[in-house]
């Protein structure tokens, strides 16, 4: 599948006002609003276009699997520092569109922090190039980063350039026994100190802390922090990143983003927390309104991450936007997709 094929498909849809459902591998079909529209299968637009390890960037087409990209990076001792979930066969386009970051999020940054440029096919079938392959570029609005997490509603991400980073030389995981409140307290204290923390995970009264960096720094931090060194931690972090760990099981799952310091919420169903306390996962023990209110009261927001279709019909995935922001979203959507044909309703039901 070529860029011209994508352009032709979008133009036809534009002219006939046909809604398109953009799809890479479909590994995140469960995420966001309900799917609608004719499938535009982008998996065939694939391949790494450019990779220059010493320039710290990689450019690839949207259908390229993250596995392929990461294998290429690993061969050069580099990585996608935001550790996106690969699920089974996730593609670069889907990774950017969903904007989901993994365990290293709080230290390394989110997906959007690593986007240097995109080639976008907008809703009228125009090819637009934003950003580029250099680390710093403030010419024009930063549309490349805006695209991250937009769930395909602003354009087809045909190609993207990401900043890549060297893999850490050393990595050790420490394990501690503590309750949720104590985990939050410790993680925020450590967060204020120059420690090479690269991930955290709390589940069933145990806290795991990953340290990554120069061997000397990791060793020094281990001595200072105590705890037990976890065995086989590499595989275990993969289960967190891929959400194959039992903590993420179940039909319904809420993903709460909170200030890392937020005290334990007075709602039942906590499964696990990550990101130094800033990301907390809950089951569906309470009503959606209660969950959203609890997150908002703590200064954060709740995402209905995974749920049966019966619930997704009634409840949007993301916290509702205040009116001025919703109006802005609608105008931006229109600026990139005047007919509203790209992934309608995938982000918000309103557009």
């Amino acid at each position, binding site marked *: 599948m070529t860029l011209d094929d994508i352009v032709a498909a979008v133009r036809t849809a534009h002219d006939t006002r046909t809604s398109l459902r953009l799809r890479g591998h479909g590994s995140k079909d469960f995420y966001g609003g309900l799917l609608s529209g004719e499938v535009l299968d982008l998996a065939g637009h694939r391949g790494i276009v450019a990779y220059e390890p010493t320039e710290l960037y990689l450019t690839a087409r949207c259908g390229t699997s993250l596995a392929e990209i990461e294998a290429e990076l690993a061969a050069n001792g580099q990585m996608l520092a935001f550790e996106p979930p690969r699920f089974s066969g996730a593609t670069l386009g889907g990774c950017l569109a969903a904007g989901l970051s993994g365990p290293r999020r709080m230290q390394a940054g989110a997906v959007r922090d690593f986007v240097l440029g995109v080639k976008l096919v907008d809703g009228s079938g125009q090819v637009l190039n934003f950003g580029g392959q250099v680390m710093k570029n403030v010419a024009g*609005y930063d549309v490349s980063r805006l695209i991250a997490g937009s769930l395909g509603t602003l354009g087809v991400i045909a190609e993207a350039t990401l900043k890549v980073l060297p893999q850490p030389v050393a990595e050790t995981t420490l394990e501690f026994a503590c309750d949720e409140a104590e985990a939050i307290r410790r993680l925020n204290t450590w967060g204020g100190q*120059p420690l090479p923390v690269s991930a955290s995970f709390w589940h069933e009264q145990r806290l795991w802390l990953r340290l990554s960096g*120069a061997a000397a720094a990791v060793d020094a931090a281990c001595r200072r922090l105590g705890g037990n060194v976890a065995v086989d931690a590499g595989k275990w972090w993969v289960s967190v990143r891929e959400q194959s760990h039992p903590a993420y099981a179940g039909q319904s799952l809420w993903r709460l983003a909170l200030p890392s310091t937020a005290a334990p919420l007075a709602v039942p169903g906590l499964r696990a927390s990550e990101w130094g306390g800033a*990301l907390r996962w809950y089951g569906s023990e309470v009503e959606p309104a209660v969950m959203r209110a609890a997150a908002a009261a703590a200064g954060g*927001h709740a995402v209905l991450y995974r749920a049966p279709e019966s619930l997704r019909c009634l409840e949007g995935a993301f916290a509702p936007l205040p009116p001025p922001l919703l109006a802005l979203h609608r105008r931006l959507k229109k600026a990139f997709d005047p007919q509203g044909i790209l992934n309608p309703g995938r982000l918000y039901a309103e557009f």
Partner: protein
Amino acid sequence: MILPAHCLLVEDEDLRPYECDGLTAYRAMPLAVCLPESEGQVIDVLRTCHQLGVPVVARGAGTGLSGGAMPHAEGVVLSLARFNKILRVDRDSRTAAVQPGVRNLAVSEAAAPYGLYYAPDPSSQIACTIGGNVAENSGGVHCLKYGLTVHNVLRLRVVSIEGEIFEIGGGAPDAPGYDLLALLIGSEGLLGVVTEVTVKLVPKPELAQVVMASFHDVARAGDAVAAIIAAGIIPAGLEMMDKAAAAAVEPFVKAGYDLDAAAILLCESDGTPEEVAEEISRVMAVLTASGAHDLRVSQSEAERLRFWAGRKAAFPAVGRITPDYYCMDGTIPRKRLAEMLAAIAAMEQKYGLRCANVFHAGDGNLHPLIMYDASLPGEWERAEAFGADILELSVALGGSITGEHGVGIEKINQMCVQYATPELEAFHRVKAAFDEKRLLNPEKAVPSLHRCAEYGRMRVHRGELKFPELERF
């Protein structure tokens, strides 16, 4: 009455200090300068200007280098100078909420008692404000490792041109909806007026040390930069100065720079003492293998600051040896550094002007300082054409016309070189989503298609299509 008398300037003598920002070559007198003291007054000013169709140019400390805060001759300047309070420094969540007129360095000073600091450190940090940093997406010498403003701002409170307040981002990660923080940061005051900023604070490293390396050959210094990255090292700072820059700063700062070197590289490592020791030894090995003929490691904090002093004082130092200088801001892939320097040397001949070069080498961001004398007829025009050549070559080499200073009014023509019509049209649609009447900082940052057509015609008319051998994108 929208503003009390002490918040409004209308007399020529009062307006004069506002007629330009750090780019003094471009000037315009505004109709008035508003100095609101409350958010309510900002709202009133914007609402009134919106109703009357009057352009508004927001302004912080006016240290910007691209004319972004240059007034509009038929508009008002909205100075946020009185929004200078640090509202909160929260040790536990490692965040600070500040008003936009707070100086960059003041944030780090307020956070220092907690062992924290605000990472982006533009060289003007003692004067420039956070609001200006947000508008320009400012960088600094440590952004290779710690990121730009966009990586370090968590939340903005914004007033639209219609006087409506909206908040974007937040204390929790990954706010719902589009990433408007990414869009607003670096938007050069074209999309809204920021009244409050929450920034991320990071722990101050226990130790920082810098290696100073001299090279006989600029190309080798450029290769050394790539070799450091290839070795898997992301230094806290990686800066380069050429011979002209070193010669300009040495008498000024007495840092002990090797004046015979063609290029001097400064490579900083920070972290725990163990981490720094390990990284410095790896950096030294790479630099030696890359052909550095002299290597020195700072042995004390005072020495580290002295090594840096020249780099940080490069602009004023050059200002001492020339009546005027013009600072450029292109970015290029690191591997094209030597090529760019050779081209700049040729341009010095072509335009009969000298140029000193300082670079954020780690991220390929060049700051050539073109020296000229504004009092001599034609010199500014030559300097401007010299600068335009550098910017257009940056694009041709696969880079950008601006890494951290913004487009403003200065690089508006070069935007036509970097972007094609469809992207420029998309930018205009984004602008219209926020500011349909185009009243916020009009005629800056994104050129009209008409302007690009004129610029293109002008260039072809002169018969000098620049770099015809290079592919355009």
